[in-house]
């Protein structure tokens, strides 16, 4: 056993006892796949605790509220987020809730459009990264051997490559025009820690007897991963996606802020870029630069808090703390 364990731990060399995997953005304390808390009871218990867990419910409400705001609010405006509609540099008022920019653009409208892009980039970027990371993790962990070696090498290279620097180069040369293409590039460079984590989990699940039984039932590798291994990790995979979502949002905001965001689309990062560029700080237009950052912090923070709550839901040990 020691050799297997060592092989699993070698690249991950750091790992005390149980493989604990942390996301680059937020260390997530999830131990080895929560020991076989069985099916029906687990689902029922999970729901039971989730609905009573303040963190899950509170975080969920904040996220959903922002999502609703981003989806619905822009529908009530008959002008665009970049149009010069109001008085210049005016503070929040009944008409312009978040005031206006130095050019008389409606900050609130920009804000809600920005929320839209935020969710879109989080969903697409996080989703893509999850897809790549899980696929590579599952394949490496399940097949093992040389395939694992190769994928592991790939994972490690992308892992140490500073993603933002690569994205800056790519974005500058290629020029990003839409949120989905921005999400595409973000997704391509933020999967490695997921692959590593999923690989480690798969490694431990692979040795369970039910995988052998599935093989004795004539199931192929793909079917075993899909029908036996992945369902066992569903809670973990879900939490992973949440972290990737948050990571993508922060990534996109950074790129937008540098001015490498999609053209013609309003985002929270771009709002901050504009505010700094047009000296909103010096002019004291706080309503211009405070909301976008607050929005990101609220959404991502709520997601993280929700994740802690989910961790407590799925791991009874933490519940008792």
């Amino acid at each position, binding site marked *: 056993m020691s050799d297997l364990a060592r092989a699993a731990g070698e690249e991950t060399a750091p790992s*005390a*006892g149980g493989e604990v995997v942390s996301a680059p953005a937020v260390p997530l304390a999830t131990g080895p796949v929560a020991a076989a808390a069985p099916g029906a009871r687990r689902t029922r*218990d999970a729901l*039971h605790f989730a609905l009573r867990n303040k963190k899950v419910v509170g975080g969920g409400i904040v996220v959903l509220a922002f999502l609703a705001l981003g989806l619905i609010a822009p529908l009530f405006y008959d002008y665009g987020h970049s149009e010069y509609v109001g008085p210049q540099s005016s503070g929040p008022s009944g008409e312009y809730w978040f005031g206006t920019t130095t050019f008389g653009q409606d900050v609130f409208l920009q804000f809600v459009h920005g929320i839209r892009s935020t969710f879109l980039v989080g969903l697409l970027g996080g989703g893509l990264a999850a897809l790549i990371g899980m696929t590579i993790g599952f394949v490496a962990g399940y097949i093992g051997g040389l395939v694992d070696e190769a994928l592991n090498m790939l994972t490690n290279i992308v892992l140490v490559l500073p993603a933002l620097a690569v994205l800056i180069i790519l974005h500058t040369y290629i020029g990003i025009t839409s949120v989905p293409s921005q999400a595409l590039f973000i997704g391509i460079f933020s999967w490695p820690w997921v692959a590593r984590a999923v690989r480690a989990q798969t490694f431990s699940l692979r040795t369970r007897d039910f995988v052998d039984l599935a093989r004795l039932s004539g199931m192929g590798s793909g079917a075993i991963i899909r029908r036996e291994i992945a369902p066992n990790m569903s809670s973990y995979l879900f939490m992973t996606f949440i972290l990737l979502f948050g990571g993508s949002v922060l990534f996109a905001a950074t790129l937008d802020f540098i001015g490498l965001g999609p053209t013609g689309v309003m985002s929270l990062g771009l709002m901050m870029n504009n505010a700094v560029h047009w000296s909103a700080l010096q002019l004291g237009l706080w309503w211009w630069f405070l909301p976008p950052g607050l929005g990101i912090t609220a959404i991502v923070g709520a997601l993280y808090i929700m994740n802690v709550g989910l961790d407590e839901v799925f791991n009874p040990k933490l519940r*008792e703390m």
Partner: protein
Amino acid sequence: MSLRVDNLKVYYRTLRGDVKALDGATFTVADGEIMGLAGESGSGKSTLGKSLIRLDTRMRLVEGGVELDGKPLPIGDQDAMNAYRFKAVSLIPQYAMSALNPTRKIGKMISELLGARGVKYSEIKPELERRLDLVGLKREVLNNYPIELSGGMKQRMVLVLSTLLNPSLLIADEVTSALDVSTQRAVAETLVEFRDREFVKSMIVVTHDISLVYQIADTIMVMYAGKLAEKAPADVVVNAPRHPYTQLLISSLPEVGVRYADRKLAGIPGSPPGLLNPPAGCRFRDRCPLAFARCVEEPPFVEVDKNHHVACWKAQ
């Protein structure tokens, strides 16, 4: 009288209510006695073993008391109990393979642990080394990290460490279940040797393997569904058990020499009751071939013969 347990009840808190894992145990363990505590899963044997040294956060002391060497043992009070742990009551845990801090050299860990308990490492080191010699461990292991030791070595290390301060009572929790037949024997015999050399006064060996504990124990106590079923000298439990559960259990165990073709053994039909809301009366009665009307009343755990306690109406 070394250990006296009086009507001890320890429950586990769960969402659906209390699981009555240990529901009223009264017994004694004499000085120098090795008591085998045998039972199947869910019999409450581990709960009993653990409760004598440390209740974990889900365990709740409901009732009852424990006396060690004539003084009450504050098992319900985590802080007060601390003074007794290691020195008066000690434990060899089931997880001996992972019981040592992986990032500390073993000797250093022991020295820090002893220091924190007010014992000078330098004073006890000669004795520690003698005991390492005794169990066949090189003294150099003190300079090793746990990862450098094999499973059997770690097991022996924990054995030595747990008994280093000569506790009155040692609880050995399934210490041999993860070991091979030959190592198993060595570890089991070491336990006896430690008792003979008076490193520990008395011992409770928690196990699911009666045939193993029979080899080393003076007495065997059998538990069933959170209750005591029978306690007697080891030979009596194995050769002349009085409780129907013990009788059936022992007759269901194959041993070398018994063959299916010659003599077909039989198990005990049915399964133990759930402990969330266990039925009143004798908990074995649903599976018991001797059950009769009176079994709806709970049979007391009484002495039916010298040093032979049984909880069964038919045995009295």
